[in-house]
C-alpha cells in the first residue's frame, strides 16, 4: 500500500472550492431543465399537434445522443458557427439544462397523466381556466407523485456534471485531475473528490426527503 493523504493537504482548499464551482452550474442547470421540462411536458399533453410533435422530437434528439456530444457541440461547435465565444460556465448550464429537460418532461408528463381525470373535470366544472387549473390543481398533485423520480434525475445530473472537465471547466472533477498531475499521485485526490460528490448527493437526498414529508401533510 502506497497511500499518503498528507500530500494532498495543501490542495484541499483548491479542491473544496470545486464544490462551489460545480454546485453553481448544477443549480442553474437543474432550474433551467426543470422549467423547460415542465413546458415540454405541457406541450406533450396539449391538443395542438405541432406542439406535441416539437416536444417529442426534442426529447428524441436529446435523449438519443450522448450528453458529452451535446456539451462539445455547444462549447466547440457553436462559436465556429456564430462567432460568439461562449464561456464554459454558460455552455455547461445550456448543455445540462437542455439535456435534463428531455428527461424531466417525460417524468412530468407521466405525473400529469397519473392525476385522476376527475380532478380536471371538477376544475372545469367550477369554471377554473386552463392556466390556474394546471398550476394550482394538477401540477401540485403530479409533483407530489413524481418527486422521487425527479430527485433521481437531479442526482444523476449532479454526478454527470463531472463531464464538464472535458471542456476545461475547473469543476470538482477537473481539480482532482489537476492535483493528480501536480503530485504524480491520482488515488488520493480522486478518492477525496469522490467523497465530496457523495456528500453532495446525500445533501440532495435529504432535501428530497424533507420535501416529500412536507408534501404529504394532506395524506
Amino acid at each position: 500500500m502506497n497511500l499518503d493523504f498528507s500530500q494532498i493537504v495543501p490542495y484541499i482548499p483548491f479542491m473544496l472550492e470545486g464544490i462551489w464551482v460545480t454546485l453553481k452550474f448544477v443549480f442553474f442547470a437543474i432550474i433551467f431543465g426543470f422549467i423547460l421540462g415542465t413546458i415540454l411536458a405541457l406541450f406533450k399533453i396539449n391538443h395542438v399537434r405541432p406542439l406535441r410533435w416539437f416536444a417529442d422530437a426534442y426529447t428524441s434528439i436529446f435523449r438519443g445522443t450522448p450528453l458529452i456530444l451535446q456539451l462539445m457541440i455547444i462549447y466547440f461547435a457553436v462559436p465556429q458557427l456564430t462567432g460568439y465565444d461562449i464561456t464554459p460556465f454558460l455552455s455547461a448550464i445550456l448543455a445540462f439544462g437542455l439535456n435534463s429537460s428531455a428527461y424531466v418532461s417525460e417524468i412530468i408528463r407521466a405525473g400529469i397523466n397519473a392525476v385522476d381525470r376527475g380532478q380536471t373535470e371538477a376544475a372545469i366544472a367550477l369554471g377554473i381556466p386552463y392556466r390556474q387549473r394546471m398550476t394550482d390543481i394538477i401540477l401540485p398533485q403530479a409533483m407530489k407523485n413524481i418527486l422521487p423520480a425527479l430527485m433521481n434525475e437531479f442526482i444523476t445530473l449532479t454526478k454527470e456534471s463531472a463531464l464538464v472537465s472535458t471542456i476545461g471547466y475547473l469543476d470538482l472533477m477537473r481539480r482532482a485531475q489537476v492535483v493528480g498531475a501536480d503530485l504524480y499521485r491520482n488515488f488520493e485526490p480522486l478518492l477525496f473528490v469522490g467523497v465530496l460528490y457523495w456528500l453532495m448527493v446525500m445533501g440532495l437526498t435529504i432535501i428530497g426527503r424533507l420535501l416529500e414529508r412536507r408534501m404529504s401533510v394532506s395524506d
Partner: protein
Amino acid sequence: MIKVEHLTKKFGNNEVLSDISTEIKKGEVVSIIGPSGSGKSTFLRCINLLEKPTDGKIVVNNQELTDPKTNIMKAREQIGMVFQHFHLFPHLSVLDNLTYAPMKVRKESKLAAQEKAMDLLAKVGLSDKADAYPSSLSGGQKQRVAIARALAMEPELMLFDEPTSALDPEMVKEVLDVMKDLAHSGMTMAVVTHEMGFAREVADRVLFLDHGVLVEEGEPTSFFDAPKTERAASFLEKIL
C-alpha cells in the same frame, strides 16, 4: 332555465344519446333514471359541456352553450356539478377547496370567500372539518364538502351525477338530506340517481332514459305507480 333540443351524442360510431329534447324550469328538481349504460350520465355531462354534444342545442339561462361563440368557462360558473367520486382537491384543506374557485374565478376577497365557505360548511354539518384534508373524511363527508364547494360558486343550477353511488349504505342518507334541503330552498337541480326513494319523494319530474333515448318523462307518482311505457315498467319491476 335549461332547454335541451335534439341532443345527440356519439362516441365514434356508437350513439349514446339520440335526439333528446326536454326542458327544466327554474326551481324544478328533475331526476334522471334508467339502466346502466342508458346514457344518463352522458346526458348530464352534456348540460355543462363536459361532453361536447355531437348535435343539438343546449340553452341554459337564455344562453346557448353549444354556440361556439359562447364563453363556456364563464357559463360553467353558474352550473354547479357534483360527481359520483367527489373529486375534491386532495392537496387543499376543506376550507381551501371551498374558497379556491370563488377567489380565483369570481375574484371574491379571501375574507368574503371564507365567510361564505364557513356558512356552507355549517349548512352541510361540517363546520368542524374546515381545516381537515379530504383524505381524513368519510365518503359521506366528502360528498357533502363537494356539494358545498359547488354551492360556493353561487350557481343557478346544480347537476348531480350519481352522488350516492360510491357511498357505503349508512352514509347515503346524510348526503340525500343535504340534497333535500337544497331542493326545498328552491335550487334548480338535475339528479342522475339510483335512489328511487329520492326520485319519488323530492323530484318534481322524472326522466327515464334507455339506450340513449328519452323513453318517458312525467311526474314521479304517476311514473312510479303507473308507467306508460313497457320499458319503464320492466325497469321498475326489476329494481323496486
